[in-house]
């Protein structure tokens, strides 16, 4: 997977990316690149710097060192709205629905202000239904986000991102807290987005999801890149099992049992 794709301009490349909070290196010296169309899983224990990494790419945080390149263009330190208009979309780990607006209006914001900015709210509202169709929320267009189930709220988060028609999509734990039956449609959606040529970074705790959908997995540990490779190999790596799952899980369970166990 790695060697062959290097000739193409990577969709995303980070060089020596780092972010300090006081004395804490939340992300340190992170370098890698992602070729077009790839689905990359990003995993790591809590506090490994996964969400910080997403925020550094999207401009919600400014890096203290290093560069972020989008298709070879330096977007380091650009404000989030400019990054969004460059077709980098994201979801938030803690979903951020616009509560005072209907589901359809939520998506319309991205259509009105995103890279394909339509000027008229009426047209945007009609287009929003196409996006909602894709994530399976079209029937709930008139509902406010407060009335959605957890799974539907995650779908809305995804729909808001897709409204930008992104070339790079960063999914920050969109499957956390979902039941196995609810995960499968999300995986299907990621596969179909990838088939359309979208590059997707899946930041996730749910191991089975990562294995099922990723071409490649990066493991972050204490802000640094621990390993990078095909999913099965990476998950079999003893260092990963220890860093990510800790000794307790590493000894008694396989990697597949973490967090995806149905909760009673």
């Amino acid at each position, binding site marked *: 997977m790695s060697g062959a794709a290097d000739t193409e301009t990577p969709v995303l490349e980070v060089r020596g990316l780092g972010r300090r909070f006081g004395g804490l290196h939340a992300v340190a010296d992170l370098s890698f690149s992602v070729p077009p169309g790839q689905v990359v899983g990003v995993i790591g224990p809590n506090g490994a710097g996964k969400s910080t990494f997403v925020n550094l790419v999207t401009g*919600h945080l400014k890096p203290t060192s290093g560069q972020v390149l989008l298709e070879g263009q330096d977007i380091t330190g650009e*404000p989030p709205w400019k990054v969004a208009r460059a077709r980098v979309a994201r979801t938030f780990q803690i979903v951020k629905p616009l509560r005072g607006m209907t589901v359809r*209006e939520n998506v319309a914001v991205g259509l009105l202000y995103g890279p394909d900015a339509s000027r008229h709210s009426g047209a945007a*509202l*009609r287009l929003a239904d196409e996006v909602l169709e894709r994530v399976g929320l079209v029937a709930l267009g008139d509902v406010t986000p407060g009335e959605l189930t957890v799974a539907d709220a995650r779908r809305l988060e995804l729909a808001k991102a897709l409204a930008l028609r992104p070339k790079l999509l960063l999914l920050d734990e969109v499957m956390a807290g979902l039941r196995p039956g609810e995960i499968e449609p999300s995986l299907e959606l990621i596969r179909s987005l990838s088939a359309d040529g979208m590059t997707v970074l899946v930041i996730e705790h749910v191991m089975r999801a990562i294995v099922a959908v990723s071409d490649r997995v990066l493991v972050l540990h204490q802000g640094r890149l621990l390993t990078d490779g095909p999913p099965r190999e990476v998950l079999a790596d003893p260092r990963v099992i220890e860093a990510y799952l800790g000794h307790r899980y590493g000894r008694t369970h396989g990697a597949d049992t973490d967090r995806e166990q149905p909760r009673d």
Partner: protein
Amino acid sequence: MTSVLASSRRAWLPWAVGVLVLAAGFGLQTQLYTDQERVVTAVLMYVVLAQSWNLIGGYTGYASFGQVAFFGLGGYVTGVLMWQLRLPFWWALAASGLLAAGFGALIGLPLLRLKGHYFAIAALGVAEGTREVITNLTSVTGGGGGLTVPTFGADAPTAYLGNDGFYVFFLLLAAFAVLTVTLVARSRFGFGLRAINQDEDAAAAMGVPTTRVKVAAFSLSGLLAGLAGSGYAFQAVNIYPGPMFDVQITVLMVVMVVIGGSGTVLGPVLGAVGLQLLSEWLRANYTTYHTFILGTIIVIAVVLFPGGLVTYVRGGLRTGQWSLLTSIRRYRL
């Protein structure tokens, strides 16, 4: 899909209602005594001020407790231009609106970086500071002794409009304010404001240039309040820093919007009309306790209709739930 189409089919309805209300405003004028005409003129001015606060506090979610700064600034720009430079009122009006809008953009840039209480307090500080500056610029503004707008005789750049004239002026200004907010609410800009109100990070992640959009909203709200202040100064003739920058004017704007329904077109109109008329009625009938009773009614209204009257009715129509308790649970923090 159906609801989108249905709503566009009935899109002419609010416009028709608006035109009817405006016509009714003109009709009403012929039926009023002089005192009543003055009361309604004040109501109309508060419709403008409430809509001004609604843009920044209601739609954008930045509770400005210094909104009177724009009102006072507009009033003083008009007063000074007519008094010192003998400019006609209509020029002074335009200058007041533009300067208040510019002032909004200028202070918005630093102030709108603050959130919640911090913004509210900083805005309050700006209003107090502006009043102090006006008070101390004695040679230009007349200072604490106030200034008198020339309105009578050959000396006056623009003849006094009189009760009838100011009624029409504020009726048209109120119509302009409501029209502005209506257009904003339906536009791309309005979607940006509502998104910022709910979650700025989420809004930015969807491409909303949050700073630019917030500053534009603050500036537009400054324009409306500045125009109202301009008309008020001309009407009042004698203006002083204290009354022109009275914090109570800000408080009234906030209360009117919150009771009527913040972030709606109709709410601030109903809030301004309801509160001003109620206040006048109480003043006439319960002179001693009028403020106390009004305060109590405001508290009860805020408790029972936390999202405002318009939001309560809308929620009721949508869900069929009219219980006040449900409404309180739905909208209270």
